[in-house]
Structures are given as C-alpha cells and as structure tokens.
C-alpha cells in the first residue's frame, strides 16, 4: 500500500498527459470543421450584404415595421447563405478526409448553442408579429453572444472573447436602438470578418 511520492507524481503526470493526448485527438475533427477563418469572413460579408439590403428596403430603421416580411426574408437568406458557404468551405473537405460533420464534441457544442439560438429565432418571430422588428438587432447580438459563450466552454479561449464582444454590442445596441442596423453591421459583419482573419492561420493549419 505504501507508495512513494515520486511514484504517485509519475502516475499523475502520465495520466494528465494521456488525457491531454486523448482530448487533442478528439477535438481535432471538431476544430477542423468548426473554426475556419474563411467561412467567418464569408459569414461577415453575407451579414454586411444583409445590412445593406435591409437599409435599402427600409431606408431608416424605424420603418422596418412596414416592411417586416422583406426583412425576415433578407435575414433568413443571410443565415442560409452563411450556412451553405460554411458547409462548402469547411465541412465537406473535412468529411472527405474522414472527419465527421458533427463529432461527439461538435454534438455537445451544438446542444450548448441551441437554447440561445432558439430563443433568438423565437423572439424574431414574436417581434415580427408585434411589428417591433427594430428591437430585434440587440436581441440577435445578445442571443448570438450567449450561444458563442456557451460553445466557448469547449473551444479555444478566443471564442469566449468573440461571444463577449457580441454581448457588449448587444448592450450598446439596446441603449441606442436607432443605430441597431449599424451595430449589426459592426458585429455580425465586421466582427465575423475580423475574427475570421485573426483565427485563420491557426485554424487552417489543422
């Protein structure tokens, strides 16, 4: 039963190293297919195009209530295009080299993000029904920020920073609702593009 302290430390070091090794291998498929710099840039550009279209169809934020249907169509298209682009840029090549689209870790990340994203979608429909769409911008930033922060528990530290940035934008947009579209362009547009450029070297190595 007597075990010397160095032996115990050796076991612990080996166990820690093996767990780190396993985690690294299990993370690899998800990181490869989740954090692509290029798909972040494409998502940002699509969001900027969505903002420009929204500006064009509404001219000023306050009039969104009259063109709610077009607003919803534009942003549904933005989400759809960003997802398709992400699939074509990262998920399909990942699958080609034997990496699953949704690994175990990816599954957990997806489940972590769903409540916040579902809330965002539900509130969009609610605000649309009650003709309060201008208020949806801060809600999008806040719910998306919450989703990113949830995913950050399984991700590199910089993902949490992205989530916090969205939360900060959401708070500011809530205080200044007149500039909601501008903050949407800054966060979903420029924010994604900047993040995509910053993470691309490390992420694409994998």
């Amino acid at each position, binding site marked *: *039963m007597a*075990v010397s302290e160095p032996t*115990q430390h050796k*076991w*612990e070091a080996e*166990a*820690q190293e*093996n*767990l*780190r*090794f*396993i*985690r690294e*291998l*299990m993370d*690899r*498929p998800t990181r490869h297919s989740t954090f692509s710099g290029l798909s972040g840039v494409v998502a940002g550009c699509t969001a900027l195009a969505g903002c420009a279209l929204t500006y064009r169809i509404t001219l000023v934020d306050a009039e969104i209530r009259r063109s709610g249907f077009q607003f919803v169509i534009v942003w549904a298209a933005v989400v759809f295009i960003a997802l398709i682009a992400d699939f074509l840029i990262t998920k399909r090549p990942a699958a080609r*080299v*034997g*990496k*699953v689209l949704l*690994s*175990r*870790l990816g*599954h*957990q990340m997806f489940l972590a993000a769903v409540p916040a994203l579902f809330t965002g979608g539900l509130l969009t429909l609610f605000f649309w029904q009650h003709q309060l769409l201008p208020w949806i911008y801060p809600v999008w930033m806040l719910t998306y920020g919450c989703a990113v922060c949830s995913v950050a*528990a*399984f991700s590199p530290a910089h993902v949490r920073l992205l989530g916090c940035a969205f939360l900060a934008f959401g708070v500011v947009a809530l205080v200044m609702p007149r500039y909601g579209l501008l903050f949407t362009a800054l966060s979903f547009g420029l924010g994604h593009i900047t993040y995509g450029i910053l993470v691309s070297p490390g992420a694409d190595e994998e």
Partner: protein
Amino acid sequence: MMEHETEMGETGASELAAALTAVGSLDEVIHQKVRLALMSTLISVGESDFTQLRDLISLSDGNLSTHLALLEDRGYVVSTKSVVKRKPKTRYKATVVGREAFREYVRNLEIILGIASGVDERTTGYSVISLLEVPT
C-alpha cells in the same frame, strides 16, 4: 483539530487506494500510445477507413495494420471490407466493447488525477469522460 486531521488523513488514504486500484486496472491494450490514438480517433470520428486513419495519425501502413489487428483481436474494433471503384477498402469502427473499455480507461485516468466533478480544471476546462457520455 486532531479529528479534522484524522479525517483528512483518511480521505487521502482512500484517494490513494482508489488511485492504486485505477493504476492496476488500466487497460494495457489501450494504454499503448498508438492504440490510444486509434481508439480516440475512431470514437471521435465514428468510422474511418485505413487510409484516413493512416493520414490522421501519421503512421506507416505496417505499424497501423499491426495495432489495428490487435484491437480487432481484443474485440475493441471491427472492420468491414468493401470494393469502391474496383479498389478494396477496409473501414474500421469501435465496437460497444471497445467504447466501454475506452470509457473505463479514461475513468481510471481521471481517478488517478482525482477528477470527480467532470470538470478538468488542470488542463483545458472540460473532462474527457464527458465527451464519451453522448449516446451513439
């Protein structure tokens, strides 16, 4: 004070006993680094063919074959052969027995480290065992 110290001593002794048992129970087949990499990868990606595994783990064909054969012998991995575009292809998948053995191995590592909460604060924030809880 004395009672507290005795309690602490008893806790330490029981943790040490648990760690000793865990060290003794570590599965030697999985403990080997290459097989550990193979099991981790197969459990993570679900299913993979020989070439993909070779590229993912960066092994020579001979080395990979030897370790996969051993894992198959132990019933931890199962292979299926097929012909794709006139070329034979072998796909590998972790079996239920393999998954359970891997889970047990990770659990033993976590016992050695004294991680019981499911959150591994010593490394990168989450426990590996939590990754294995997702049903297939």
